[in-house]
């Protein structure tokens, strides 16, 4: 979907071409990242403080997003929640994608028994439904933040592995791999500098997609009471806590859901409108 809206000169030097949708999506993501970083400094009320005698209060000057089921300020809780939703999801997706891609490339290049061993093991892991796997692990080791990150990355590693392996297998059949192999190169070099540069683009797009799935799974786990535990709360937990307010449209449940949707939609749009590297320089 290329819609050429950019002027000639500017993007020439940058070597990349952005389009409007991609830029605005990136803007929203950076906004949330900023919020996650500086949350403690910018929240109007402390997260645990009960500021409203009533509960599920409407939006007001003092409480921008109204109050939650206990009468606490939902706006501050969303800002602090950003830390957990973004933090946990980002950590989990980077671990999952890093290990998935590394294993995928190794399997593609090494081939033989190593490939089938890895594929079988990760395929088995893939067959256990993610939420139930999360349930068993959380029940076993409790749902501390590191345990959650570990669980989420284990759930999504097989997917990243399958994707990366498929890409790497294609690259592996290329002649430059034959040349490198016959030169006597070892596995690490073959992976790091021959295969990785070629599959980095699609892998990053896949990372974005997995990030969205992890945010949703984290909210799902929180909904089942297995995700982030009080006093901390990620957006999924906020929605769960205040789900009671949904029938009368309490902002306390609507805004966290909008926060989740805004993050996931902007990541999706960014993936579909990634800036494309320009190889047009030969024309100058």
């Amino acid at each position, binding site marked *: 979907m290329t819609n050429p809206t950019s002027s000639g000169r500017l993007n020439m030097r940058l070597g990349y071409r952005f389009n409007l949708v991609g830029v605005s999506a990136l803007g929203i993501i950076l906004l949330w990242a900023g919020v996650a970083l500086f949350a403690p400094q910018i929240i109007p009320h*402390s997260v*645990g*403080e*009960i500021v409203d*005698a*009533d*509960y*599920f209060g409407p939006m007001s000057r003092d409480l921008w997003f109204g109050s939650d*089921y*206990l*009468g606490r300020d939902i706006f501050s809780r969303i800002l602090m929640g950003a830390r957990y939703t973004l933090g946990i999801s980002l950590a989990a997706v980077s671990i999952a994608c890093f290990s998935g891609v590394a294993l995928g490339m190794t399997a593609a290049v090494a081939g033989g028994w190593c490939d089938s061993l890895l594929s079988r093991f990760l395929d088995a892991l893939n067959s256990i439904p993610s939420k139930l796997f999360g349930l068993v692990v*959380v*029940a076993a080791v*409790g*749902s501390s933040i590191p345990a959650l990150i570990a669980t989420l990355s284990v759930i999504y590693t097989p997917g990243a592995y399958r994707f990366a392996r498929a890409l790497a297998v294609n690259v592996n059949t290329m002649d430059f791999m034959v040349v490198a192999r016959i030169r006597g190169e070892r596995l690490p070099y073959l992976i790091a500098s021959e295969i990785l540069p070629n599959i980095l683009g699609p892998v990053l797009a896949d990372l974005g997609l997995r990030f969205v799935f992890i945010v949703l799974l984290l909210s799902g786990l929180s909904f089942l*009471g*297995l995700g982030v*535990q*009080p*006093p901390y709360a990620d957006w999924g937990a906020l929605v769960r806590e205040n*789900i*009671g307010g*949904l*029938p*009368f449209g309490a902002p306390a449940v609507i805004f966290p859901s909008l926060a989740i949707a805004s993050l996931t939609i902007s990541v999706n749009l960014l993936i579909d409108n990634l800036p494309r590297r320009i190889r047009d320089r030969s024309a100058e």
Partner: protein
Amino acid sequence: MSDTTNWSCSDDATIENAIRRGASRRDLLKLMLANGVAMAAAGTIFGRASEAVAATPVKGGALKAAAWSSSTADTLDPAKASLSTDYVRCCSFYNRLTFLDQTGVPQMELAESIESGDAKTWTIKLKKGVTFHNGKELSADDVIFSLKRHLDKATGSKVAAIASQMTGFKAVDKSTLEVTLANPNADLPTILSMHHFMIVADGTTDFSSGNGTGAFTCKQFTPGERSIGARNPNYFKGGPNVDSFEFFAIPDENARINALLSGDIHLAASINPRSVRLLDGKDGLALSTTTSGTYTDLNIRMDMAPGNVSDFVEGMKYLVNREQIVKSALRGFGVVGNDQPVSPANAYHNAALKPKSFDSDKAKFHFQKAGVLGQTIEVIASEAAGSSIDMAMIVQASAAQIGMKLDVKRVPSDGYWSNYWLKAPIHFGNINPRPTPDILFSLLYKSDAAWNESRFVSEKFDKMLVEARGSLDQAKRREMYNEMQVLVSEQAGTIIPAYISNVDAITAKLKGLQPNPLGGMMGYAFAEYVWLTA
């Protein structure tokens, strides 16, 4: 914290709206309660409300109700019953020797009479003409078998501790039996009204068929799913009003409420106070509130740091803002407690004993004396102990204001009772209602009791406990129990901020539901007494 009652204009509107809809006086009371207006004599609420409902029962209809929890561990074996779901099913398929009416006085059910001269050996006469679902005549042997099996480890009975005081059983004739106790206990009739002492046929091992003397015969029972009972035509107390009774659990609270709102079920059990607002303004629905003595308490073990310093315990008692807990954690569905287990629903409740009112300066003074002001103190809470997390949040917020750092550590409900309860230095517990002060005190506060949550030790208390148990003189007993309640409130490390009301939501078509001290849903026996109007 502004102390104005939060009587906002929106509340007035709700009241007018209710009146216009012709809400009965009872609904009115509820609405006012829902909006947190503290009533002076909380204890008598349920008393007045019940008379307004004595209309005439209607026969017929298929009753459908939903409890809050069930699993593959559901059972029809009264001894193993562990959840409200099990109690309701047992009440519908079996009977007990006695049952408690609204005022907590034991009434005769299967038993004709229960007497004893010295409160040690009791003679129980059984009613005539009572048959089990499979046609077998009720006999003394059935009762003896039902009581004796609690002592056998393999049954895994929940009330083994209480049943252990029954040492001797003798069948005098087909419908009379004699039970001798280890030491005298005037409360035996009340004890026998507990759900675990339901009477089953002699020699039963497989309980999945639900063969009892109860108001319903068991048509279908799949653990973790549902049970369906049909009216027992030859029920000795005259058949129940409804034709059939389907009972299952909907763990997700919103799903349970939505099921009630959409008319799929007639009763949704134990609604979290927070969701009561959902039901406001919805016509054709009503709430049934029972303050039956369930409470969630903050236990400070006095044999471990920091509980071993009495000043710390004192400080904590002042730190707990009981009104705030009742208002925002329990949404007004609870009654302020005075740190002792005997609730207002019980006849022996010592209303004169006032709890320590919320005073952050006194709390700070005691904490400074105890030298714990700067430290971070861990408090364990879990959803397993109802509303404990919300209570912990409130205490944590008030502690923060006086520079006291309480770290609320939430743990999953799975395995809470075996891993954290009774073990962590400061943690929340949750106690279900018990019919008599004697059971409560011997279970929770006797020096050597297994469930002594704060390791409260007092010979004086233990001596009075045994003495009160045996005496048949009501006045003397009441005076002793009052003094014991003061002792517990002052010296024990258990802080009971409030007695939690159990709220059940019902459709307006369901009539005849009355509160009962043994718990929600009319002491879990509602199926027998309620009826459905058109």
